[in-house]
């Protein structure tokens, strides 16, 4: 197995450090990472609400698409597992969110739609990182050393609230996109796609042609 390059970044991440990240490399973080997903985006961008923190990017410029398994524990919170949620659903908010907050690193599951890397992330000096295997909740939970703050918990609930995590050696994450807009997922997907047609060779056509088996909605099922 080839050796995979690893980075350890202090947050907020500096642009020269972000520029060094290449698709397929591994990253760990120290500092503050915040969570935001549809509940937060809708509140701020949909309804025009103010950010709960001033100068967010001076504290953290890493947006984790995440809902923690968390529970109140006296004055603070106990964080069990931490795992990403699928990011493509948040595509429509990303451009405005990056502009508003100065966020430079987006972490999530599954990457963004292909065109987003070049059109939305790269022009704003931002990159996308993916969690590993989507289930390394315990490793990431270990990296969370405390809850710096949690915003809108009562209104949005545990899963949608904006959590500010103080993290140490928080990872591993895999670099998906770089500052040129190149994407590991896109690259790997292209290689996988080359073989797909041949997998169906020799299989007879389906008896019924329905949506799901065809995109042509004028076509009759028989």
């Amino acid at each position, binding site marked *: 197995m080839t050796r995979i390059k690893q980075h350890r970044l202090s947050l907020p991440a500096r642009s020269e450090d972000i520029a060094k990240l290449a698709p397929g490399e591994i990253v760990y973080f120290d500092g503050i990472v915040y969570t935001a997903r549809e509940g937060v985006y809708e509140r701020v961008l949909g309804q025009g609400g103010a950010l709960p923190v001033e100068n967010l990017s001076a504290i953290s410029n890493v947006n984790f698409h995440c809902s923690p398994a968390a529970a109140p524990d006296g004055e603070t919170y106990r964080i069990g597992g931490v795992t990403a949620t699928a990011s493509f659903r948040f595509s429509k908010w990303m451009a405005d969110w990056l502009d508003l907050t100065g966020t430079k690193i987006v972490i999530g599951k599954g990457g963004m739609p292909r065109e987003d890397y070049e059109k939305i992330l790269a022009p704003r000096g931002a990159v996308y990182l993916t969690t590993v*295997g989507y289930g390394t909740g315990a490793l990431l939970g270990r990296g969370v050393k405390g809850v710096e703050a949690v915003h809108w918990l009562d209104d949005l609930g*545990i899963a949608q609230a904006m959590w500010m995590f103080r993290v140490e050696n928080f990872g591993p994450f895999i670099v998906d996109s770089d500052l040129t807009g190149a994407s590991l997922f896109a690259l790997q997907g292209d290689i996988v796609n080359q073989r797909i047609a041949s997998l169906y060779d020799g299989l007879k056509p*389906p008896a019924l042609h329905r949506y799901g088996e065809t995109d042509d909605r004028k076509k009759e099922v028989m």
Partner: protein
Amino acid sequence: MIHHTVIEEAAYNIMAKAAIDIPEDYLTGIKGMIDLETGDLSAFVLKAMVENYEAATEDRRPMCADTGLPRYYVKVGDKARVEGFTGIERALRSATARATHDVPLRPNRVHPLWRTDHNNNVGLNAPEVEWSFEPEVDWIDITTVHKGGLFGSDYRMLFPGDGIDGIKRFLLDTLIAFGKRGLACQPAIIGVGLGGSKDTCMQLGKQAACLRVVGDRNPDPKVAELELELKDVANGIGMGAMGFVGSSMCVDMHIECGHTHTGGMPVSVHTFCLSSRRATARIHADGKIAYRTDPNWFTPYMRRETVGWEEANPAAAEMSS
């Protein structure tokens, strides 16, 4: 008499065990796949997952923060004596709410329209409780499964003329669609439901994925052969963990069949993810609880084909006479 308090204790404990401790059969399966994996990135992901399982067990924290939709499968022995069945369901709901706070589990359950969250994974039709029965025994088995639910499962009505080719086509469609970028969190235990009515087909496929262990084969030799054939189809796609180039798509393939409409062949596919969370408790008649990770759900009785159990199993007939 098996008391509700004992049932709640067992259910509470398996909630934590399922969320934290990866079942041994699945762990062994994943470790075996690392050696065979052809893609570097996919192999890296599998190694990180193994470290993650170890961290979860050491720290007693959930292996994945998306602790899925916790649910129960209950098997009641013919000779088990209980205080009442609604009380069992209440105990299971109570255990779910308590475990959600204490483990903690993520309170994933929300109303489908209003998105309101009780913050305890209890609500309308939640957690699901599926019941089955077992002849001749006096225990109760309670299994919990914590499975995600957004990506990786699908259903299609096929027809007899579609045959095995149709099943393969549907399997490929589903695994490729949800395998890209790893939305299905492969390599997975894949369950295929064949036949039954539509809802039974979905149910059988899900149970096949979640309630049978890696290495288990269907007792029908031809179905067992098809399981291995479909496993090869899945691992031949050229996709590994997270949709990266590789060969690790399927840790094991399980098929369950149900007699179906003469004109149709419904099929469902379910993927039980890299955090294949299940745990079982057996509550004996004296109230003692024994824990394990093999649900042993598909007993010979569950797969009976004839009117009565005794006809299919003369030994059982002898025992009960």
